[in-house]
């Protein structure tokens, strides 16, 4: 702040004033609705999830196997070449213990979230998912985990067809 300036504009509304309804508030609800075309790559990915499999795309030029699959390699800028299945097991690249929901409200049970690098994909190629069947303080980066799937009849072709990843060794 410049020493020459003596006051700064802006009038705060405190939480109390808000609760007291001191100021006029316009409340409006708005629900934008979309139906996003998944496209070639993700449609196939989702269909494979329904079958209990994880599929990747390979770029033969940089020799990477990519999940989530995409029809173009972003490093080489060229179409990717082949489909390839990867395993539904992997390694915890990083994790976190979440105590809040998307709307900032407190969760009753903490959620374990992680980036899981998948076996069969190139190094460092992971997906976002949850961890389960493990106590938060037992999670380690580098842990081997495997996917727990919903039973076939419940799978819809969604990322949630995998319930979570659980540790492969009993600790």
């Amino acid at each position, binding site marked *: 702040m410049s020493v020459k300036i003596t006051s*700064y504009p*802006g009038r705060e509304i405190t939480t109390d004033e808000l609760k007291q309804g001191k100021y006029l508030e316009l409340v409006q609800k708005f629900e934008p609705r979309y139906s996003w075309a998944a496209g070639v790559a993700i449609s196939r990915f989702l269909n494979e999830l329904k079958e209990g499999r994880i599929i990747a795309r390979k770029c033969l030029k940089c020799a990477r196997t990519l999940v989530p699959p995409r029809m173009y390699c*972003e490093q080489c800028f060229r179409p990717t070449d082949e489909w390839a299945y990867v395993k539904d097991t992997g390694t915890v690249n990083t994790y*976190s213990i979440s105590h809040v929901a998307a709307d900032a409200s407190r969760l009753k049970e903490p959620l374990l979230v992680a980036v899981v690098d998948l076996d069969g994909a190139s190094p460092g*190629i992971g997906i976002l998912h949850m961890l389960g069947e493990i106590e938060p303080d037992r999670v380690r980066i580098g842990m081997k985990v495997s996917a727990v799937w919903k039973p076939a009849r419940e799978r819809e072709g969604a990322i*949630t067809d995998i319930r979570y990843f659980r540790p492969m060794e009993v600790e």
Partner: protein
Amino acid sequence: MLKRRVAIVGAGITLFRRRMLETGKELSFEASKMALDSAGLTLKDVDAVVEGSAPDAFDGVHMKGEYLLDGSGGVGKPYQRVFVGGGTGVFTPIAGWWNVASGFHDICLCVAEEKMSPLHPHPQYAFWSIFDQILERPLGVTLLWIFSLEMRRYMHKYGITEEDIAHVAVKNKGNAVDHPCAQLGARITVDDVMKSEPICWPVKRLDVSPPSDGAAAVVLASEKTAKKLTDQPVWLDGVGWTLDSTHWTNRDLAYPEYLEKAGRMAYKMAGIKNPRKEIDIAEVYDPFDYKELHHMEGLQLAGKGEAAKMTVEGVTQRDGDLPVCPSGGLLGVGNPIAAAGMMKICEVFWQLRGEAGKRQVKKDARVGLAQAWGDLMQVGTVAVMRS
């Protein structure tokens, strides 16, 4: 090949608070007016306006750039809104830079505004919609997940502890006590941070900056005009920005490579060869305390994994060899997304002119840096300024 030198000649800022009475338009106006007044200019003198604001979801207006344009001084003028997520605040004066450096305009007003409070039930909810609709949103993902995932990875790779990181929160919130607009200036201890409730471990309440309402603005001018307007122009000598891949789960989160590239782009333009030696003061983006460290390393102001040590040793204090966030940063002043980055630009501007009052750093600061970051941990925007 770079045609024209551009300077910042005025700056303005509103209070940052959790909830402000002013509308987004009014906040933009207050900051713009203040910036113009400080430069001795009126709106008539302005040739073009750039506005920066992050997700429309906060204000609750589609195409909010259009909605904000009157408060930003854009009526009847060439006006553009730029938007690169959290990087917007520093990107806004970068956009002003290209408006002037290109020769298209002589005087450009740059305003950054954010009004996060309108969104119910909580501003954080807007962040759910930044994630992939098909692969991530169904998991109930929150913004805090990706920060905490990144923080954990960074800590793991370099063996940095939560306590080390907490020093940043202590420093910045303490610095913010001297910032007249600050929302959360306070003298706290590392212990306070460690005891604050875990939100998304390892992120705890005092590790993170709050949602806020606020606006800030600067006026840019070409060299010739700047010299007429002030005898203390602050030259915007280097600008840089880089965006990394959408697929953040395919990247190594321990090191912000995109920020290194953005930094190099700005350093090259500004003729900076050794950032650690040549940058006197750095306003590095700190929405979370660990980000300050992460970014310092990306900007080559610290070796990989070494920023924490520098912080604990006091190097980044106001009286240290490389003051970082003397303003109090986002952690202390507040985080109205786009305005926060602009707040950093304003801080460097005032510091380089010796006008930062109680926050003035001890050393003789001639070259400063402001940096912002955002998207899915993807974008780095950097500005190098010289007095």
